[in-house]
C-alpha cells in the first residue's frame, strides 16, 4: 500500500509537472525565465504536448546560439512548463503561480481561446506579457488588454476561405450546414463562417452545436441527412471531428463538400480516418511546402529539419506555432533592447515579424492582422493546395464522390 502510493505519487509528479530547467551549474549567465501552463494530460493533451515541443525546440535553439540578445547582453532561456490538464481553472492557477512564485519574466499561452481568455487576465493583473500560440477568437482580444499578444490572425479570416472557394466550384453549391462543439473558439468561428456564407448568398440550412466531448454525434448526422446540404463545415476539435466524419460515413450521408480547420491535416486525423479522409477540405495556416521564411531560423524548412533531427518525425502545425511564439518574443526583445514589459509591448505593437508559421503584425489589441492561410484538399492521400487560385497546386475535386465509390 505504502509502496503503491509512492509509485503513484512519482508517476503523478512526472505526468503533472514537466519542468525543464537548463541552468547549468558553474557559469553565471543571465537568465530569462519563461513559463507556460499547457496540457500534458486531459482532453487537449495531444495539442498541448505538440505546442510544448515547439516551445522547447525554440528555447534549445536559442541556447545553442548562446542565448537571447537583449540590449547587447546575452540571456539564456529557462522554460518552466506546467500541466493545466485542459482545465481552465487550473491554467489560471498555474499562471498565477508561475508569475508570483516562480517569478517568470514572460508567459507563453495555453492551447486554445477558452483557456487563454481566462489565464491572460492574470498577466494583465501583474503586467506581464503573454504570447499565445493558438488563441484567435475575437472575444479574446476584445477586452482592451495591454499585455496579451496572439500569433494567429482572427479565426474567421482563415475559416472564411471555406466560403470563398465555393464560387469556383461547379455546379455551384447552394446550401451550407455548420456544426461545432459548444466552446468559445469553435462557436465564434462557426458564427463567423455563417455570417460570411449568408453575406455571399448561400443558404445556411443547419447551424448546430453539440456538447464538447460528446461521444455520440449520430443525432446531428441523422438531422443532417434530412436537411441534405451541399456543404458541411465543422469547427470541431480533433476528437469530435474524427467522430463526426466517421459518423457521417457510417450513416452514409453524402454531402458534396466536407470542410474543417487546420487539424484536418494533422497526422492523427489522417491516420484515424484512413481512406475516408480522401477529398476532405481543410484550412491551413501553415503549409510546409509553401517555402515560408523566418527571421530567426532563416526558413520554416530549417525548423522542420531541426525537429526531425531530435524526434525522428515531421513536426505538426501545433509545434511550429509553439516555435513561432518563441520567435515573436525573441524578435520583440531584440527590438526593445530591454526586458521591461512596457518597452517590449511597444516593440510588439510597432513592427512586423516573419515567424516560421506566418507573418505577424499587431493592431492595438494585440491581435495579429495579417495572413489568411490556404485551403488544402486531400487528394490520393496527399494534401494539395486548392485555394486561393494563385497558389493552386491542383483543381479541387467537387462534388465529393459518395462514400465507398472512389
Amino acid at each position, binding site marked *: 500500500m505504502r509502496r503503491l502510493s509512492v509509485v*503513484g505519487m512519482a508517476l503523478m509528479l512526472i505526468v503533472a509537472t514537466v519542468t525543464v530547467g537548463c541552468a547549468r551549474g558553474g557559469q553565471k549567465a543571465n537568465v530569462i525565465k519563461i513559463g507556460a501552463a499547457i496540457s500534458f494530460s486531459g482532453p487537449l493533451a495531444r495539442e498541448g504536448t505538440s505546442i510544448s515541443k515547439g516551445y522547447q525546440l525554440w528555447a534549445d535553439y536559442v541556447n545553442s546560439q548562446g542565448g537571447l540578445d537583449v540590449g547587447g547582453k546575452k540571456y539564456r532561456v529557462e522554460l518552466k512548463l506546467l500541466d493545466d490538464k485542459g482545465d481552465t481553472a487550473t491554467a489560471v492557477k498555474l499562471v498565477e503561480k508561475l508569475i508570483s512564485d516562480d517569478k517568470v519574466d514572460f508567459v507563453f499561452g495555453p492551447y486554445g481561446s477558452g483557456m487563454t481568455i481566462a489565464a491572460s487576465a492574470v498577466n494583465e493583473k501583474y503586467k506581464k506579457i503573454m504570447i499565445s500560440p493558438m488563441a484567435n477568437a475575437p472575444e479574446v482580444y476584445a477586452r482592451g488588454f495591454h499585455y496579451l499578444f496572439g500569433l494567429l490572425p482572427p479565426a474567421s479570416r482563415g475559416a472564411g476561405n471555406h466560403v470563398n472557394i465555393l464560387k469556383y466550384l461547379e455546379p455551384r453549391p447552394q446550401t451550407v450546414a455548420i456544426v461545432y462543439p459548444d466552446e468559445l473558439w469553435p462557436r465564434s468561428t462557426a458564427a463567423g463562417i455563417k455570417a460570411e456564407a449568408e453575406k455571399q448568398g448561400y443558404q445556411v440550412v443547419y447551424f448546430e452545436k453539440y*456538447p464538447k466531448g460528446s461521444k455520440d454525434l449520430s443525432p446531428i448526422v441523422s438531422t443532417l441527412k434530412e436537411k441534405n446540404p451541399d456543404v458541411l463545415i465543422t469547427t470541431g476539435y*480533433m476528437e469530435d471531428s474524427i467522430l463526426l466524419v466517421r459518423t457521417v*460515413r457510417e*450513416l452514409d450521408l453524402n454531402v458534396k463538400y466536407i470542410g474543417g480547420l487546420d487539424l484536418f491535416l494533422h497526422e492523427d486525423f489522417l491516420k484515424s480516418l484512413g481512406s475516408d479522409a480522401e477529398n476532405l477540405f481543410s484550412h491551413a495556416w501553415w503549409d510546409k511546402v509553401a517555402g515560408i521564411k523566418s527571421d530567426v531560423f532563416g526558413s520554416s524548412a530549417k525548423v522542420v529539419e531541426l525537429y526531425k533531427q531530435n524526434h525522428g518525425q515531421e513536426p505538426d502545425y501545433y509545434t511550429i506555432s509553439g516555435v513561432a511564439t518563441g520567435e515573436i518574443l525573441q524578435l520583440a526583445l531584440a527590438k526593445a533592447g530591454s526586458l521591461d514589459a512596457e518597452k517590449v509591448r511597444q516593440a510588439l505593437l510597432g513592427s512586423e515579424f516573419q515567424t516560421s508559421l506566418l507573418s505577424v503584425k499587431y493592431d492595438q489589441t494585440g491581435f495579429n492582422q495579417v495572413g489568411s492561410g490556404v485551403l488544402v484538399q486531400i487528394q490520393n492521400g496527399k494534401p494539395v493546395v486548392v485555394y486561393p487560385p494563385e497558389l493552386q497546386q491542383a483543381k479541387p475535386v467537387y462534388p465529393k464522390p459518395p462514400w465507398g465509390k472512389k
Partner: protein
Amino acid sequence: MHLQEIVNALLLAGIYACVGMGFSLVYGVMNIVNLAHGAMVMLGAYVCFWGFSLIGLDPFVSLLLSGLLMFALGYLAQKYVVNNVIRSDILRSLLVTYGLEMIILGGVLLAWGANYRAVTPSYFGAGFAIGSAVVPYLKAGVVVMAVALTVALYLFMGRTQTGMAIKAAALNREAAELVGIDIRHIYSVSMGVGCALAGMAGSLVAASYTITPSMEGSYLSSAFVVAILGGLGNTMGAIVGGAALALAETLGAVYLGMSYQKLLGFVIFLLVLVLRPYGLVGRRFYAEI
C-alpha cells in the same frame, strides 16, 4: 417517424451496456465504486488498437484478448491492493481505485502519448438498411456482443459454482465465509470479471470511436449511470440501463437539441435514484448490500 434515431439509440445502448455491466458487478458485490473502471475501458481500447495495427486483429477477436488481460489486471489489483482496504470505509477504496486510475492514465500517457487513434476494419462504413434507417455492421455487431455478454454473465452468475459464490459473498459476507467460501479469492475474481467486461467494452468502443487516454472519464460516468439505472449487481440490469440511457440521450438530442443530450440522461438518473434506488429492474436485495 424517427426510425434512424431509434436505431442509433439501440446501437449506442450496446456500448453503454457493455461499459456498465462490469462496473455494476463490482459495485453490487463488493460495494466498491471502481473509479478505475473507465481506465480499464481505455486499456481495452488500446489492446484493440495495438492488436489491430500490429497484427491486424479484428476488434471482435481482440476483445477476447482485452478480456483476458484485464481479468488478470483486475484480479491482481484486487488481490494485492484493494482487498487490503475493503473492510474499512468506502472512502479508502475510492481513494485506492482513484490512485489506480491515475497510474494507468499516467502510464498510458508516458508509454503511448496523447495521440488520437482509431481502429478502422475493412467493413467499417458498410451496413444494411431497415426501411430508411442505416445500420452499420460494426455497431450491429456491438449490440449482438452486448447481448451475448449479458447472457454469458447471467449464466456464469447463476449456473457456476464461482458465480454462486460471488452472489453469496454479495448477500452476506460472514455467512459465505462460514460455509467455506474464500472471500478474498472470490472478491478478486469479481474484480477480475468486472475489469474483463470493461476491457471487452473497450475493444468494442475502440471499433466505433476515437481512442485517446482522456476517453476514460466519460466512460466512467456512463458506467455509473448505467449501473444505477439498471440496479447494482444485477446482470440483466446493465442492458436495460444502457438502453434507457441511450434512448434518453438520443431522444433528448433530437427533441431538445444536442446541448441537452446529457441532461435528460441525468434527469432520469436522479429520478431513479429518488424513486427506485434499487434500479429499474433491480430488486431491493442488491441495493441493500
